[in-house]
């Protein structure tokens, strides 16, 4: 089978004037299957965001190749949609127009009717129909992040990249958004890479959890398969032996093998 997305020997160094280069991540090898959901977890400073930025093309690795669908990634593009932590909605555009702007750019072949239908379909997907004419400043943080997800999915990306998408939200809102994401994923299959520092989130959402060692020179420490049936129910999972096993494995990795003191 042809590889879908592969990272080969990725290294990222940042030159520091007058000193030795800072090596953020090194020797990262990873293969991701189509429609797989990957969570990347690690302490802050482990280079997980750097890794995501290199896949999105917003940042460039100093060594190694990232190959998507047989093509090397050389820069950002709509085939890899990003959901940013701070939602990055344009504050002067309504919810509808934020999504419409993206769809119009990526699918110029759509006529007005098709464009409207597509935008409205994705607004409905995240249950935001009543808010479609509101400006980002008028809706809650959780709603903004839902718009961000809808915008990312509306351009039909090959990979959905999420950089701590729910990190800035309170835990109830976060749980709500995780449910949204799982429900959407149930209906529309996507390849998703999600960066998180939340152990429960990683296990709940993903098929595989990639655990990063601490930086500098961070790399993949362990890879954990999450063998849980979908749809997953967060309440029932609390008793599930597989869920507990995964959770414990990640906790052991993060807090025993690679514990990190606050600096």
């Amino acid at each position: 089978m042809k590889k879908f997305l592969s990272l080969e020997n990725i290294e990222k160094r940042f030159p520091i004037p007058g000193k030795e280069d800072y090596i953020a991540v090194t020797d990262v090898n990873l293969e991701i299957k189509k429609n797989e959901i990957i969570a990347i977890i690690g302490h802050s400073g482990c280079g997980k965001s750097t890794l995501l930025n290199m896949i999105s093309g917003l940042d460039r690795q100093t060594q190694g190749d990232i190959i998507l669908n047989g093509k090397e990634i050389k820069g950002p593009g709509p085939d890899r949609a990003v959901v940013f932590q701070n939602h990055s909605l344009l504050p002067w555009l309504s919810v509808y127009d934020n999504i419409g702007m993206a769809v119009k750019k990526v699918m110029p072949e759509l006529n007005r009717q098709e464009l409207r239908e597509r935008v409205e379909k994705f607004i409905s997907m995240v249950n935001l129909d009543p808010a479609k004419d509101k400006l980002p400043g008028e809706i809650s943080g959780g709603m903004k992040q839902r718009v961000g997800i809808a915008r990312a999915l509306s351009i039909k990306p090959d990979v959905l990249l999420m950089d701590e998408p729910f990190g800035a939200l309170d835990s109830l809102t976060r749980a709500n958004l995780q449910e949204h994401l799982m429900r959407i994923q149930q209906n529309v299959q996507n390849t998703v890479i999600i960066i998180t520092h939340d152990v429960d989130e990683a296990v709940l959402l993903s098929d595989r959890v990639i655990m990063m060692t601490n930086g500098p020179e961070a790399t993949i420490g362990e890879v954990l398969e999450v063998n849980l049936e979908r749809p997953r129910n967060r309440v029932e999972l609390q008793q599930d032996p597989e869920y507990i096993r995964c959770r414990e494995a990640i906790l052991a990795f993060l807090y025993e093998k690679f514990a990190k003191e606050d600096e």
Partner: protein
Amino acid sequence: MNNELVKKIVLPLLVFIAILGVWSEIANMVEDFPTPSDTYVAAFGGVNADGDKIEGVLEDPFYVKNEDDKGIFWQITASLERVFAGFALAILVGVPFGLLLGMSKNAQYAFDPFIQIFKPISPLAWLPLLLYIFQDINMTAIATIFITSIWPIIINTALGVRSVSEDYMNVAKVLRFNPLEKVIQIILPVAVPYIFTGMRLSLGIAWLVIVAAEMLTGGIGIGFWIWDEYNNLNYPNIIIGIIIVGLVGFILDLVMGKIADFFDYRKKGRA
């Protein structure tokens, strides 16, 4: 009645009375200095302190006796026309230039020192040079306004461009916006409120400049009119002119502020 509202009316009234008091005191001390009532008569007509009947400046602001003798309304519009001509030119040149400066670090390095040097030059310093170049009163006044009011537009536009968040640019990169799309869809919406702030400052400067410029160039205009009244020993009219300049400037700023708010996305949709 609303207590706050009462204060907003009563307190300025008290200050107004205080100003009239100080003014009367100055009129007492300086020989021939017009008193508030002299000025009132000169503005709205009536009988002056010497018992002569006077026609007020504001009684017939629209009169045209001949090319060199026109009512106060025509003086103001002549000044406003020049202000808006120079101001429009400053916007036409300043906004694109500011965009360039904001987007290109190299352009900023290249031009910034000169902007810093040209910016503080008084309009009156430019005037002789421009008069020599154009040999024409109107052109000189417009060019003076252009060259002194363009700087806030350039500086604020560039500032607006630089304040575009990296996040928005990342969105543009992911969607592969071309440079023109970046400017129209991302940079301009962010920069427009800044541009309007620059335009508001610039219009204020333009209005300051026109009065001074017209005093030197002569012809027609509110600045010239004030100077002319000085030469005619019509001292009350000087004060009327000053008050008019203040009021017109205030109105210009008010209108510009309203327009700026209209285009500022931050002032909209805030629940």
